[in-house]
């Protein structure tokens, strides 16, 4: 049975990756998850310089989902390369770094530094973080902004470039097309849906940042729809995510047109969800006697 897939130049032993920001930089969960069993490790959003992140409270539970407004707290790309990357070199699992920036130059510079760092296979451009005031989100909601960032990163690195799309748009296909035209090797979607929650007794927003990003099973129907729409329109590989907790969730995304999937909030529900999802896909393939996972991609009928 073949579970391996290719995203740009990245070869993964199975289609399951970690969703950025929900798996730290990999080491934090290495005692509960065998990193060698993952298709790829996508580390959390990394900027040129350290970011302190947003004030607390940063998360709130919602029905079948959660809101987060972490604000991309991170120690910067140099710290990542020096302190986090060496540990990841011990595993034969590709490492993809999620990159954030306040302006186009930042994105490009971070990409340049990762390009020469041994042990990084790809860059995921995060132009859809809803919790950061400057830049970022802004880029992801216009075709022009998307194209700018993607072209800059594309020019700065020969690594596989993945563009992560925001669901907070009228027409996700337009953004996908813009990213492809600007040279992205692959697309990943969805990032979180902008939302909020209020504590009626305290009469206050539950997040210090007021709004945050909605994730988890609650958003799966929206994510699945967008993956399907984008898969109809573009030819680059697609990494589907949004509410995946088990193997069947992942199969839904593959059938909708995804070539690979990522597990985010699912890891909070079950710390070993990523591996469970990979096993669940193999399970499904066995039951349905499918011997190549790539046969599933886009295999949904109406």
């Amino acid at each position, binding site marked *: 049975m073949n579970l391996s897939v290719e995203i740009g130049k990245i070869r993964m032993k199975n289609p399951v990756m970690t969703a950025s920001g*929900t798996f730290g930089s990999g080491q934090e969960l290495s005692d509960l998850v065998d990193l060698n069993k993952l298709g790829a490790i996508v580390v959390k959003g990394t900027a040129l310089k350290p970011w302190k992140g947003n004030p*607390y*409270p940063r998360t709130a539970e919602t029905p079948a989902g959660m809101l987060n407004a972490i604000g991309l707290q991170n120690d910067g790309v140099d710290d990542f390369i020096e302190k986090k990357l060496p540990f990841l070199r011990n595993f034969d699992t590709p490492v993809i770094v999620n990159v954030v920036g306040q302006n186009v130059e930042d994105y490009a510079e971070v990409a340049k530094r990762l390009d020469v760092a041994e042990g990084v296979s790809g860059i995921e451009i995060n132009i859809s973080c809803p919790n950061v005031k400057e830049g970022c989100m802004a880029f992801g909601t216009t075709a022009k902004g998307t194209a700018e960032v993607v072209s800059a990163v594309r020019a700065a690195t020969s690594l596989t470039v993945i563009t992560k799309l925001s669901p907070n748009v009228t027409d996700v296909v337009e953004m996908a097309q813009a990213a492809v035209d600007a040279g992205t090797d692959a697309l990943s979607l969805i990032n979180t849906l902008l939302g909020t929650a209020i504590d009626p007794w305290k009469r206050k927003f539950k997040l210090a940042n007021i709004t945050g990003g909605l994730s988890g099973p609650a958003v799966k129907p929206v994510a699945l729809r967008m993956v399907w729409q984008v898969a109809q329109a573009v030819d680059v590989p697609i990494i589907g995510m949004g509410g995946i907790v088990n193997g069947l969730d992942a199969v839904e995304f593959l059938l909708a047109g995804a070539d690979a999937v990522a597990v985010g909030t699912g890891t909070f*529900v079950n710390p070993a969800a990523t591996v469970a999802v990979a096993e669940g896909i193999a399970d499904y393939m066995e039951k349905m006697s499918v011997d190549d996972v790539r046969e599933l991609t886009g295999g949904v009928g109406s």
Partner: protein
Amino acid sequence: MIQTKRIIADCEIIEQIEVAPHIFRSVLVEPTIAKTAKPGQFVNVRVCDCYDPLLRRPFSVHAVNPEKGTFSLLYDVIGRGTKILRDMHVGDKVSVVGPLGSSFDLGDDPNAHHMLVAGGCGAAPIHFLSDALCHKHGCGNVTVLVGAKTGTAILCQSEFVAHGVNVEVATDDGSFGFNGLVTELLDNCLKSTLNLGVNTRVYSCGPMPMMREVARVCRVHGVDSCQVSLESTMACGLGVCMGCVTKACDHHDESCEDWRYSRVCTDGPVFDAKELVWE
């Protein structure tokens, strides 16, 4: 970085008791956690096999029984998750991740006096801690100060007495023990012990305002070792989401300019009071 090996396990519930009004104790079977958990650590419990509620609920390890391979939780039923946990039947299983987070440092000075301050459900980890201190240093050197709004809400008093430690009680309404805040009790006790020149170590768990006051009192009295166990809203409990943060300081100067957000779930929940930025 990770002190104890964490595991994911389906644990059978073998006991469910209401120990005080809407305060319940659940005893779970999990030999590894029973053996390896340290005082101050917690477990993350998935209360239903569904997506609502979605996230796990963190609870301090309240007691362990390594022989029987069991451990217990002591919790206040305040919302949906704790309600579901309370309504579970003996024999039901729940998914547990743990033991998680940092633990209390028990110290090595055989002559030190240990002063434990518990507020409300903060008694949960303090109970486990008092037990451990008794075993390591002898109960004579341990004093537990238990505070609550009213007498019926005072938790674990009989258990502490059973341990053989010195127990003092404070209630806001004076219905039981000292009439006032448990932190006032602490203030008095510290005066006496410190006057006797005894090396005194303070440990605390309870509502944020209480712990802030504990930290202040310790600062005032120049107590060198003051450990507090914090709570925060957690998404992962694993150290990956950065959701549970509190402001921390590497050096120990009061007005910490270069503070950073530190994770309560993995860098804590037990912190040295001096390393936190108290606002």
